């Protein structure tokens, strides 16, 4: 049976892994290559890098990070952040990424999803959706770190990007991100049930039960977390053993 995946996420700023606490203070969490190797050793199923580098001068640093990681870590690598055109996708894949994630650029130009998946294959294209609840059972897509409402319905947008050729959806609840209160399970399940492509749940993980809930109640195909792994609260292996003990199929 296919295993549910656990994906540590590294936010990378100018070549260093950082993690925002309550959306503000960026804590340095270390060297991305070293951390990626540690997660690989712990049994991570994939690793996601989110490039949050603000300065365009430092944009190419992520390419070097990906190159170094890809020489030492032989599991799938996803990279997102700052992807605006097909050429950006190609650059990241050539550096060693297996999948490239796009968010705002897809909202601004949905054709980019079709163009990119047409060129490099759906399996390489992840669309990241940041969603906020606007009414009971209703979520809308936000950009700019949750500040800008696009007016798009999150479920309809997920179905649209799947039809355009996305191979996977990285779904983040902006209501939960950084809270440690667990995934928005209603959102996760609604999107996962609405599309035929895999959905990665993200945003809000504070303990191992939250990861298990994302799979069992949210019906996510994979769960993504950052801070519970970065600061030594849990290893990826502990997370997998916990999920296995709940009857969830994992790779151990």
């Amino acid at each position, binding site marked *: *049976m*296919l*295993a*549910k*995946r656990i994906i540590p996420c590294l936010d990378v700023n100018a070549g260093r892994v950082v993690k925002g606490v309550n959306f503000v203070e960026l804590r340095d969490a270390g060297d991305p290559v070293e951390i990626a190797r540690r997660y*690989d050793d712990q049994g991570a*199923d994939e690793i996601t890098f989110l490039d949050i580098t603000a300065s365009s001068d430092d944009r190419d640093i992520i390419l070097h990070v990906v190159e170094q990681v*890809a*020489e030492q870590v*032989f*599991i*799938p690598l996803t990279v997102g952040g700052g992807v605006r055109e097909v050429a950006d996708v190609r650059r990241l*894949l*050539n*550096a*060693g*990424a*297996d999948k490239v994630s796009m968010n705002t650029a897809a909202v601004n130009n949905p054709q980019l999803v079709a163009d990119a998946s047409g060129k*490099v*294959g*759906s*399996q*390489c294209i992840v669309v990241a959706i940041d969603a906020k609840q606007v009414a009971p059972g209703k979520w809308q897509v936000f950009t700019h770190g949750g500040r800008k409402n696009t007016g798009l319905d999150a479920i309809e947008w997920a179905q649209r990007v799947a039809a355009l050729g996305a*191979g*996977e959806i990285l779904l983040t609840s902006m209501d939960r991100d950084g809270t440690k209160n667990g995934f928005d399970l209603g959102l996760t399940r609604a999107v*996962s*049930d609405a599309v*035929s*492509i*895999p959905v990665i749940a993200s945003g809000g993980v504070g303990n191992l039960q939250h990861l298990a809930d994302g799979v069992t109640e949210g*019906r996510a*195909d*994979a769960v993504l977390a950052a801070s519970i792994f970065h600061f030594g609260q849990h290893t990826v292996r502990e997370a997998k053993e916990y999920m296995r003990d709940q009857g969830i199929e994992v*790779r151990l």
Partner: protein
Amino acid sequence: MKIAIVDYGMGNLRSVAKALEHVAPAAQVIVTSDPAVLDAADRVVVPGQGALHDCMREFLARGLREAVERASRTKPFLGVCVGMQMLFDHGEEGDTAGLALIAGDVPRFSSAMTAADGSHLKVPHMGWNRVDAARAHPMFEGIEAGARFYFVHSYYCAPRNAADAVASTQYGIAFTSAVARDNIFATQFHPEKSASAGLRLLSNFVRWNP
């Protein structure tokens, strides 16, 4: 030792090259679309990503057919993902004729498959799944039974001759996840992305003398 990775302009060949360099530091790993280089290589790998019809089109446009067919008859030969699917007679994706080196078709997973809990099985089949060897093979040496490998695909190979299937995987149905015949070995999963099990399989390939 020269290991040639066939480059026909599709997908990410870097990870296959890096993984081979990792397991065989003394080997010369060459990414090439030159038939002469394929003829001169000791071992040949045909990777593949994306749509089968695009891969076959680019592959044929580069005049690689004859050299790859020669390699498939004469030296250790590894196909990966679409590089496995291309070996078959016919693919449903884009109604594509393959190289017909292995008899069989490449149909799509049904979108109506369900899991034990009633949820629908996603297509593509993406992630880590168990590979059960149908028989012993030098390429599986040192790899535990039912080890997990990384898959990402929507179509699967259905060999006509059961003897060609060397491993199977469960995803709604039991499908053939590796084939082997003479010096040809091919996997639907990505050994280059399958951590220690995948590296072991690649290391076995480097040492395999069929």
